[in-house]
């Protein structure tokens, strides 16, 4: 199967003026400006197949949004090549733009003062969607996201989560084949995050759309993405299945159990993560898990013992920590 997104040695460098603090440095800056090259994206390559949902992960400033902007045609790459649906995004051909969408959690495109229905009609005109198809799609999305009671209220009267759902409907009315989602659940409560995740999954299933998603909420990634691409300082750190990432970078497992009336030095078993009444959770080195659980069962009267992989947040954190050391 040929890939729908293909990038090769993609780079985006910025020349940023810099100077020391103070009046003297400011005066010198008038005569000669000093520039520093910031490598926001520094030669990354990957391919995405049709219908894939890929998590694009990295800490703040890693280059995720810059990459999404290059893939959606907002930014011209400094070097490297990009192909999305066979188009070169930077040319921003109308045929290309009709088949993609970029949803940014902190950006609005719907009219603040009007009900979303009015803005949806503008989306129809922008993308030349036939009226019948527009109404069908609009009503389908409204139902999926349970927005029927809200579409007649001005956007300014909606909560953040409700607004985000409206933005997503507006961004998908033209049924794009490629979705670039940049922190779509940013600032939303858990329920709203879950609703949006379910909707994205349903859209992907119904229309076979390809999704590239950035999110700092690992629940989004775990729920939607089988595959993840991890970048840091503009460079690719990992590209593969989420489970492989956990396997590769998780140095610990968590062992939970219930124990009554025990006065034990837990440090001989592992690091205490939490205690809740008689329930304890320890973090133990992955390679020593079976030995430690055996000791716990032999030494103490523990019940309900469970062993779980480390939370994905911890894994990602350890990925960045490890690579930070090797990249400095």
């Amino acid at each position: 199967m040929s890939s729908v997104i293909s990038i090769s040695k993609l780079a985006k460098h910025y020349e940023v003026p810099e100077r020391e603090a103070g009046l003297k440095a400011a005066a010198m800056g008038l005569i000669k400006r000093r520039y520093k090259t910031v490598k926001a994206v520094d030669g990354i390559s990957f391919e995405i197949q049709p219908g894939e949902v890929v998590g694009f992960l990295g800490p703040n400033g890693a280059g995720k949004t810059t990459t999404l902007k290059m893939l959606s045609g907002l930014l011209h790459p400094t070097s490297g090549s990009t192909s999305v649906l066979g188009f070169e995004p930077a040319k921003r051909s109308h045929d290309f733009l009709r088949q993609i969408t970029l949803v940014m959690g902190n950006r609005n495109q719907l009219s603040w003062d009007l009900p979303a229905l009015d803005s949806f009609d503008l989306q129809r005109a922008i993308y030349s969607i036939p009226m019948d198809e527009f109404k069908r799609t609009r009503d389908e999305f409204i139902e999926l996201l349970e927005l029927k009671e809200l579409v007649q209220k001005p956007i300014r009267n909606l909560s953040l989560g409700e607004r985000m759902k409206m933005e997503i409907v507006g961004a998908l009315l033209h049924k794009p084949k490629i979705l670039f989602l940049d922190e779509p659940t940013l600032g939303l409560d858990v329920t709203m995050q879950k609703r949006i995740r379910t909707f994205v999954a349903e859209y992907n299933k119904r229309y076979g759309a390809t999704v590239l998603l950035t999110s700092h909420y690992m629940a989004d990634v775990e729920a939607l993405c089988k595959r993840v691409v991890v970048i840091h300082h503009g460079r690719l750190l990992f590209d593969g299945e989420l489970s492989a990432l956990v396997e590769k970078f998780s140095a610990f497992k968590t062992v939970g159990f219930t124990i009554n009336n025990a006065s034990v030095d837990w440090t001989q078993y592992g690091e205490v993560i939490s205690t809740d009444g008689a329930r304890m959770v320890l973090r133990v080195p992955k390679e020593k898990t079976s030995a430690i659980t055996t000791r716990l069962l032999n030494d103490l009267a523990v019940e309900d013992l469970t062993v779980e992989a480390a939370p994905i947040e911890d894994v990602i954190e350890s990925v960045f920590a490890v690579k930070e050391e090797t990249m400095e």
Partner: protein
Amino acid sequence: MKRYFDYYRATMKLSVLEQLQYPVANYFYMIGMIAEPVIYMVVWSAVARQQGGMVGGYTPGAFAAYYIVWTLVRNMNIVFTPYGWEWRIREGQLSMSLLRPIHPLHGDVAYFAGWKVVVILLWLPLAFVLSLIFKPELNPTLLQGVVFFFAIWMAYLIRTMTLSLLGMVTFWTTRVSALFELYFAAELILSGRLVPLSLMPDWVQKLAWFFPFRWAFGFPIEALVGNMSTSDLLTGLGMQLAWILFGVISVSLIWKVAIRRFSAVGG
């Protein structure tokens, strides 16, 4: 073509709906805006009376006609400003526009054209009240009326293009307010906004011919209230068309270069 028509219709409709959300605020805005021409009108009418009832061919009634029409042309002149360009780039709003399969300038033209529909409706009672107070001398011919109708919309397009060109400077550098102020100062003097151009020195009138300001402001007013010949009226429309074409071509060329510099700041 049908696609663009539909887009313009939908955007203008959205704009009208937005303006109708705040009719009182819009009215206060317009009332605030007429303070400037009313001051000009009172001052020049007083000067005319002191000069024996006329100055530079303008009677108090002619000044009233000039400045009442001025209020409509001024509203037609309101477009997306260079400051707006600065804001849309800084706040990342341009990114959202660039994702659409239609040039952002179409959005600007259509949105403000919709706004004009509301403005004209709100202007009519204001013009009526001003007419009752200042008693304008206004007897346009049918040809003048027709030319005026086209001239105010072409003026709108000229100013949209010139201010877009100015606004696009923000692709190269931020904090360009000083440049904008310089432009607006030149516009004030050479457009006929401060005073009818025929009252200005001869060299100013000649200079004004070569800049877009007159064609975006003074010409539509003169077309309706002045005594221009048919030839002058048609020449004026021709000059407006030429400036629109110049603007469209310049905007297209500069846009291609500017957009490569766009660094999608602010998200």
